[in-house]
């Protein structure tokens, strides 16, 4: 399943992350997952939220640099070795991953957010392993 991830440019300064989360909270937007990629000077905050378009708009109004990026959601079982299995099929299928992160909302499974070099290729590979990894519309409850 492909969804929109919200990315925000942040300087490495205290209080910045809090400001973003507060703005989103005040607008009734729920954050399901986030990750921060950083360098010594700046970082990129990546968010999976309940309403990415609205989040984007509100953050823009508050003059943050924001953009949405398509990412692929995959599901793995909550068991040792399952992530490795996912990575193996992606790698064997020739899907290059820019970055990825994971979150879990259910006991027996974990959700993996993947930003592949090619969305199409990644989705195709997952389609071929439908039962193991493909995320279905109904699986995602924000």
């Amino acid at each position: 399943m492909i969804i929109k991830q919200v990315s925000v440019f942040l300087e490495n300064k205290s209080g910045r992350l809090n400001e973003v989360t507060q703005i989103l909270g005040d607008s009734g937007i729920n954050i399901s997952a986030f990750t921060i990629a950083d360098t010594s000077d700046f970082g990129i905050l990546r968010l999976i939220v309940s309403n990415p378009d609205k989040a984007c708009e509100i953050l823009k109004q508050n003059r943050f640099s924001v953009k949405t990026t398509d990412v692929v959601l995959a599901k793995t079982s909550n068991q040792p070795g399952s992530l490795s299995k996912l990575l193996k099929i992606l790698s064997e299928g020739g899907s290059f991953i820019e970055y990825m992160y994971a979150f879990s909302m259910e006991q027996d499974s974990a959700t993996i957010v993947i930003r592949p070099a090619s969305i199409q290729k990644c989705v195709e590979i997952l389609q071929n392993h439908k039962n193991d990894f493909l995320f279905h519309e109904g699986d995602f409850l924000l």
Partner: protein
Amino acid sequence: MIWNEKIECASRDEMAAIQSERLITTVKRIYHNIPSYRAKMQEKGILPGDIKSVENLKDLPFTNKTDLRDNYPFGMFTVPMSEIVRLHASSGTTGKPTVVGYTRNDLQMWAEVVTRSLCMAGIHKNDIVQVAYGYGLFTGGLGLHYGTENLGATVIPISGGNTKKQIQLMQDFGSTAIACTPSYALYLAEAMQEIGVDPESLKLRVGIFGAEPWSENMRKEIEAKLKIKAIDIYGLSEIVGPGVSCECVHQKGMHVNEDHFIPEIIDPETLQPVDPGVIGELVFSTITKEGIPIIRYRTRDLTRLIYDTCKCGRTLVRMEKCMGRSDDMLIIRGVNVFPSQIESVLLEMSETEPHYLLIVEREGTLDILKLMVEVQEQFFSDEIKELEALRKKIRNNIQSTLGISVDVKLVEPKTIERTAGKAKRVIDNRKI
């Protein structure tokens, strides 16, 4: 249409001959009438007889804005007041204004150069020109006014302000051209949008904009919003007012009316002329003015000169859009750096106006140049490696254009302080 083809398309040799003859006359006139400039010439050991051609221009002393102030109000006039038929003045940000006086011939010459400018912009006698520059002591309004009349076009002398009326007259009178500041043009566009007037429904097709610096991006914005061609006109009251130079329809630099005003480009630090095509400070000498002729006036505007013949057929030298002020120049490790050069590097990399701040520090004996660039949407990528690549690209482009290394720091939008009007671009923390 070319208004004065004989002059505007003259060969470089013909132009040099005209300039030489007129320069010689003007230098004599100033030497014998203005004690302060005579003293400067004597100090350099130059007599009027030493000036034999335009080649000798570079030997003459400069005139600064302070010279005009020191001689306030009429000390630099070279004719008795009975010959002066009009006065204009520019408001000084500090202290006294700068006063200029025109003889009857001066006004005729001014009308001629404005008429040439209007023709360069593609305006002809069937046009209806709405002059929305202020009328009064400021040279903008009356300068454009008499040039338009001289051309034989119709002038609407509405002056500045009163935006609703401006738009109404555009609709009712069918104005085909407007003359005003570029910022007012944008304001007009917004006002039209607000009251629901579609620019497409107007006959407006060209705008003559000047009196303040404006970027290529601003041009694009004006052209898109008002659906017109936006032409840059340059002038300063010390030289004559608007009409010193103006773009033609090709918009590739402003043709200088150099049979009246000789342009030079100097290095603002060494004060020596630079090689053709190099950026530096623009200096003007008026060679036909009677009221207040001025030799080598330092405009502080930064630009470069292009001597090639233009596509329009004119040979008049062109000056590029002004790229800032020499007052803002920084000397870093012996290199002249103009904030505007940094700005052009950034502009080349994006669609919209960049926000940046230059910080100069001295660490030990070494000058360090830091550049903060706001990561506006056009720069923002979701990936660290892209942003790192952007930072590197800015660094490399500046290094190759300016020959100076710079630490680039990417910052969030809104980080760099905005001040009303002019943005602060440079902080010099060096204690020298």
